[in-house]
């Protein structure tokens, strides 16, 4: 298993059934996109997990900096007014 590290890493997204979103489920090594799709099928959909697969090279994903976590995300903690829970809904409107 020595060659695996020479292939680029791909992130795998699987849609479990029609109408749902593709969800990130893991990553794998593959030489190119076609191989990544094929291997994703074998590695991540063996137990009927999927009806559709997306792959994207891991180095094509731009991620937020972990060092920015506090600045980016903590300020949202006390902004309850951003949740639309203060409207009075008519009784006829269910399941909001």
């Amino acid at each position: 298993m020595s060659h695996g590290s020479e292939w680029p890493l791909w992130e795998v997204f699987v849609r479990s059934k029609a109408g749902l979103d593709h969800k990130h489920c893991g990553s794998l090594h593959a030489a190119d996109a076609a191989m990544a799709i094929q291997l994703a099928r074998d590695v991540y959909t063996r137990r009927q997990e999927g009806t559709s697969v997306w792959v994207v090279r891991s180095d094509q994903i731009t991620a937020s900096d972990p060092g920015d976590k506090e600045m980016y995300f903590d300020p949202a903690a006390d902004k309850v007014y951003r949740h639309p829970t203060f409207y009075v809904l008519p009784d006829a409107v269910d399941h909001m």
Partner: protein
Amino acid sequence: MQASIARPEGAAALYALRIADTCLVLGQRLAEWCGHAPVLEEDIALANIALDLIGQARALYAHAGAGRLDEDQIAFLRDERDYLNPTLVELPRGDFAFTMLRNAMVATLLGELWKRLADSSDGELAAIAGKALKEARYHRRHAGDWVLRLAGGTDESRRRTEAALAELWRYAAELFESDRIEDDAAQSGVGPRWSELRAAWLAEMRALLGEAGLATPREVAFRSTGKLGRHSEHMGYLLADMQFLQRSFPGGVW
């Protein structure tokens, strides 16, 4: 040590048995890659394919046993001469190029066979074929993709692919040698003689090899005879490995 059983009899049962043995023996060879494939992802892919093939064999054994013999008995308690798989599938797994090219050859054959068997006069066989066809199509895609990559890869991968082709092609002719078992099946509408699949198989293999930039080898006079139960020297070792557990612990289950 559990004694051997007599194989199922009757042309229809033997016809199914030949296909089942082809699937089981190739499945056994592919399972040998478990833990040894070049990369982890491919290790899983090969195990998936091996289990697809063994699953196809199970369904066919249960069908051929017709309630008298169960699938384990048929799979694990026959003597070498009672296995009817072509020699091609029992050859040692070789290197990765050899495995992939053989998979492409066998998946192309089985794909054509399952397509025809979907119209079998035997309803159960037709149902098995309908399910197996989808699996064979994927096996063909997977193996064909690798043949292209290896033939167009490095000097080393191309050399290995060419060597595999020269070795494996000698065993292709046997696939299309038909006998009484297949004549009977064809006449009763159970399934085609494998010889009827030759033109389609050759066209598809030629297309694959052409795309890979490999010349289709010429047919040789040599004929292997595994389909008749006369196997290569490799078969005995394969069976010893495969049958050991069931013969030592009869009826053992997980």
